[in-house]
């Protein structure tokens, strides 16, 4: 990734109205026309998204972060598609957050989470590509003195067939950069795509095969120091005292510093020496107010919420209370979902260089602008005097978005060694003890069945933790956290419940333990899908109806939900009995704008679970790169099954008990089933793919385990249960 060389170009704001598929989008976006200095050596910037070098290399600017999910390649495909360039000449670079601010946020939102990388920006990046294409055509037409309408652009070349002339983009770029951007562009119909929509290889693979990809932890800067940190392991606690002198003379140690109220850090020549000294550093903690908090006390708090009178209503239809009281037959079950750690393979890290005039941070981040804000705040400098350099992420999963604790810490340390860059790298233990944990919730579900086995009423009472209340209170609605109801609401495009139940109530008793929650890949869809999809299986069983047939009856008004469910059922052979010893389960949900379903085949022999096969289907509306969608779906099962089988952070004495992968086990090769992915893009909407499928992993497997054993596992993780 090259840095963009100049941000001080004179800029114009041009409104661009567009049409797409015949629809006028009334879309307004500032585009900036580069005014290149005479004789400048920098390659011409056609607009904010596209730079074309004289050798025809096309540099596409990517505002969202690449953390493995393939967004970098997908966004480049969308720009290249409209640009009509030669894909083999495409390379990418990240603009920096400060450049974005300086240019009126021309690249839009940098935040990369909620599976929004592509679905929120596809339109303006495509416009960016189309505008650049039109400017290249205009430049060629002007040079040849022919009408632009007689010229066409293809494969990085503009041609004028009537006069048999042609020229490459690289030759046109400087002139194109001076053209006035068109007022209107028409985006291609996705069915005409030749670059987007194709399973192209990723643009970022080669460097990941030979050790040359640089992650945040790999950064090297001249005169760089290294820092290891330990924050108070007790939630809500802080540093009382530490004995810096005890380690001051250890090899390599430069200084021992307090970091805000909560942490101490050792700065040394190498990280290993910093960590060695930190391990030897005597620290006394003020353990804070939460020493009595345990997993059991949190469970009791949530249990109370299950029966509480007051709750926020997320979905309501008919009168579930009355229908349940009047019902001849009800079924009730209570489920629980524990805390999870993101456990990105690259631990949290950031490198900061502070002087009284300026602060620069190099950081793998899902949200460069949030990193910039955190850096400025921690540095006590105006944001204009700060800069953030985005580095490739060794996994994000939500941990590196909203939460910029490591950025603040790195700047706080750097302020105490001004003039020297300091690389702060967390140990795995620090990462496990200071997560932004997947919140814990419980759910009590009560359903009413009529004499024919139809579901006539359903009450889902969720009790537990709100993420928004802790981290984004501005998103709360009159005290309610709407995100709690992901996948369970009746309206909207993000994730609606796929069942019509005449009497329905989904409500939430908010109970917030003093454990910091965060957006964990899949967010609240994970547990909501577990609750509703396992309970559907319970209801079907109680009604004596096949689980697919039972669901189908409730899904007549939800054809897209049903389509993915039918697809996995058909592929796994739901209507034919499995081989002896093999058992099946199903699940579906809608989330992050996409419809997903999974079918699992498992065997349980002497209590030993084997997940043999997964079939997954996803309808994200449009698909930008089917090969990347497949990878995201496969990866979703690793993440979802890790949570299902092993994932659990337990609280004791006001702190987490798990400190490393030896006690926080995750899915490895031997656990991993074969995954078959069915992609069913029905068009007309843009859904995310990085997260929704995670949610169906656990319920599909748990339903198959029930089929195999007759045991309902209602509390994750599976490792705590005996399946024999």
């Amino acid at each position, binding site marked *: 990734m090259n840095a963009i060389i100049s941000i001080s170009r004179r800029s114009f704001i041009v409104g661009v109205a567009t049409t797409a598929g015949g629809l006028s989008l009334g879309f307004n976006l500032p585009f900036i026309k580069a005014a290149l200095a005479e004789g400048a050596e920098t390659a011409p910037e056609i607009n904010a998204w596209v730079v074309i070098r004289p050798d025809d290399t096309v540099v596409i600017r990517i505002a969202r972060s690449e953390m493995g999910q393939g967004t970098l390649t997908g966004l480049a495909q969308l720009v290249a598609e409209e640009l009509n360039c030669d894909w083999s000449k495409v390379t990418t670079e990240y603009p920096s957050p400060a450049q974005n601010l300086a240019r009126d946020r021309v690249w839009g939102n940098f935040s990369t989470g909620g599976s929004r990388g592509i679905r929120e920006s596809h339109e303006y990046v495509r416009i960016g590509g189309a505008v650049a294409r039109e400017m290249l055509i205009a430049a060629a037409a002007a040079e040849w003195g022919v009408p632009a309408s007689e010229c066409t652009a293809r494969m990085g070349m503009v041609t004028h067939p009537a006069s048999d002339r042609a020229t490459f983009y690289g030759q046109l770029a400087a002139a194109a950069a001076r053209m006035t951007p068109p007022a209107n562009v028409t985006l291609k119909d996705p069915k005409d795509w030749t670059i987007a929509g194709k399973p192209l290889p990723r643009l970022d693979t080669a460097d990941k095969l030979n*050790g040359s990809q640089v992650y945040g932890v790999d950064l090297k800067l001249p005169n760089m120091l290294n820092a290891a940190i330990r924050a108070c392991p007790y939630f809500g606690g802080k540093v009382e005292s530490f004995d810096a002198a005890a380690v001051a003379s250890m090899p390599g140690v430069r200084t021992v510093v307090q970091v805000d109220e909560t942490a101490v850090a050792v700065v040394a020549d190498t990280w290993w020496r910093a960590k060695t000294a930190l391990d030897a550093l005597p620290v006394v903690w003020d353990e804070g107010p939460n020493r009595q908090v345990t997993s059991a006390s949190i469970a009791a708090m949530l249990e109370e919420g299950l029966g509480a009178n007051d709750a926020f209503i997320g979905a309501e239809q008919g009168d579930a209370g009355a229908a349940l009281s009047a019902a001849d037959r009800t079924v009730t079950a209570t489920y629980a979902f524990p805390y999870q750690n993101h456990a990105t393979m690259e631990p949290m890290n950031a490198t900061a260089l502070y002087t009284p005039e300026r602060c620069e941070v190099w950081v793998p981040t899902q949200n460069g602008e949030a990193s910039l804000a955190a850096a400025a705040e921690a540095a006590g400098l105006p944001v204009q005097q700060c800069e953030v350099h985005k580095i490739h992420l060794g996994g994000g999963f939500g941990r590196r978005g909203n939460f910029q604790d490591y950025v603040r810490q790195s700047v706080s340390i750097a302020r105490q060694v001004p003039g020297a860059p300091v690389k702060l790298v967390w140990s795995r233990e620090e990462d496990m003890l200071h997560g932004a944990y997947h919140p814990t919730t419980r759910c009590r579900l009560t359903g009413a069945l009529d004499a024919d086995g139809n579901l006539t009423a359903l009450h889902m009472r969720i009790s537990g933790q709100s993420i928004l209340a802790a981290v984004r209170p501005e998103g709360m609605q009159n005290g309610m956290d709407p995100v709690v109801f992901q996948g369970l609401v009746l309206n909207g495009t993000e994730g609606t419940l796929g069942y019509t139940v005449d009497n329905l109530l989904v409500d939430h008793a908010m109970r917030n333990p003093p454990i910091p929650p965060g957006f964990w890949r899949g967010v609240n869809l994970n547990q909501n899908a577990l609750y509703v999809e396992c309970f559907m299986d319970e209801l079907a069983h109680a009604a004596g109806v096949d689980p697919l047939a039972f669901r189908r009856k409730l899904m007549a008004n939800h054809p897209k939900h049903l389509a993915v469910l039918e697809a996995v059922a058909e592929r796994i052979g739901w209507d034919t009995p499995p081989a002896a010893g093999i058992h099946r389960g199903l699940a579906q949900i809608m989330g992050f704008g996409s419809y997903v379903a999974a079918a699992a085949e498992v065997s349980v022999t002497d209590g030993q679970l084997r997940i043999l096969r997964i079939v997954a289907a996803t309808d994200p509306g449009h698909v930008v790169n089917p090969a990347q969608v497949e990878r995201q779906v496969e990866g979703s099962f690793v993440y979802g099954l890790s949570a299902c089988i092993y994932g659990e952070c337990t609280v004791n004495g006001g702190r987490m008990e798990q400190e490393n992968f030896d006690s926080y086990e995750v899915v490895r090769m031997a656990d991993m089933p074969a995954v078959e992915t069915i992609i069913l893009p029905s068009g007309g909407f843009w859904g995310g793919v990085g997260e929704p499928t995670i949610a169906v992993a656990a319920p599909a497997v748990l339903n198959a385990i029930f089929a195999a054993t007759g045991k309902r596992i209602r509390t994750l993780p599976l490792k705590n249960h005996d399946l024999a």
Partner: protein
Amino acid sequence: MARLTINGAPRDIEVDPDTPLLWVIREQIGLTGTKYGCGVAACGACTVHIDGVATRSCVLPVSAVEPDQQITTIEGLSPDSSHPVQQAWLALDVPQCGYCQAGMIMAAAGLLMQNPNPTDEDINAEITNICRCGTYNRVRAAIKLAANSGEAVQRG
């Protein structure tokens, strides 16, 4: 002072003798392809070859490595990413974030040297590295592809 042979070249380094090999490779030698993931031999991100054997370097004190033992890191697996395992990885576009992949590739190359035609069970038993992005199925397929290419045994 310790002498190590890394990627074929002898290196003399000034280092505390109980420093784990991982950190010597990353910080003294400056080769950062080998990654830290856990520090307790639980994840495999730090896998290198020592005399051809895949080894987790985060718990191995540098003093336990003899000067003439051949340490190979991801940077030294081949000069140009042409090792059959790297080629198979490229063909199947295995990496997602990529952070675990150096360790995966070294573990896979080590496995194929010992066992040129591993079964699924062999792969399950020998490749215990953690990938949080979830590349396992493509790792498995790439190991088989590399095995079928037949050269993995001779190349180290």
